[in-house]
């Protein structure tokens, strides 16, 4: 039986998105003083989720021995996104304050994802008659 529970998958996607966004934010901060660097961000989770739901169904393995094409490997679009007025004379558009706010969002999102995962696993365990 395939063990595939929607909420666990969604929590996983949310955590993956948080990690990907964190990587982009830390690149921005590392390059906060690099001349000509433009601050970047990735597609929000809700947008990428809608895209994934609307996208035509990917190929599915027909038999157990076939290799599945990993549809969970998200490739988020990276685009330039700077705070208003953050551009400095040397062409750098990173505002550390703005990036900190985004990092706090990411942290919250990651905690939410792990919390949902934890809770769902607890419910599953309770369903099997084993309450921690």
């Amino acid at each position, binding site marked *: 039986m395939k063990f595939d529970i929607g909420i666990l998958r969604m929590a996983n996607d949310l*955590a993956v998105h948080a*990690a990907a966004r964190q990587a982009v*934010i*830390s690149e921005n901060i590392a390059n906060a003083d*690099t001349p000509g660097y433009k601050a970047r961000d990735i597609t929000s989770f809700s947008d990428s989720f809608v895209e994934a739901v609307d996208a035509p169904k990917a190929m599915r393995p027909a038999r157990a021995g076939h290799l599945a094409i990993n549809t969970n490997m998200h490739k988020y679009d990276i685009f330039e996104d700077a705070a208003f007025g953050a551009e400095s004379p040397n062409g750098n558009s990173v505002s550390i304050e703005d*990036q900190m706010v985004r990092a706090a969002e990411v942290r919250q999102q990651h905690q939410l994802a792990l919390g949902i995962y934890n809770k769902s696993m607890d419910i599953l365990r309770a369903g099997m008659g084993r309450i921690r």
Partner: protein
Amino acid sequence: MSDLLKTMASSVSGMAAQSARLRLVSENIANADTPGYRRKLVPFEQVLEGHGQAGAVRTGKMHLDTSELESVFQPSHPMADEDGYYQGSNVNLMLEIADAREAQRSYEANLKMFDQARHMTSSLLELLRR
């Protein structure tokens, strides 16, 4: 997981670059009164990965500030010319302090990102420990 490790790698490169900059600032301040000293500058560059994607940062080749050296009037100085002037350094302390502040601020931001990535990794691993 690899994204979080990448986060840590770029934060570390940022911290290394900022501390190199801070080192040059302190060298400049230490030599503020050395005759003929030119302040050292280091450019920051993006490290480009495979397909033109920026990732980490690194410091480029150190160069000297070519602006005019300060002329100091002190006829008793051993290096003074016949008019009584000698060439001081072109270090502007105000500029160096501002530079040091900026380096410190950016260093702290990188450290915070590193700490957050570490925190995210450890709470991820916490899931396995139940």
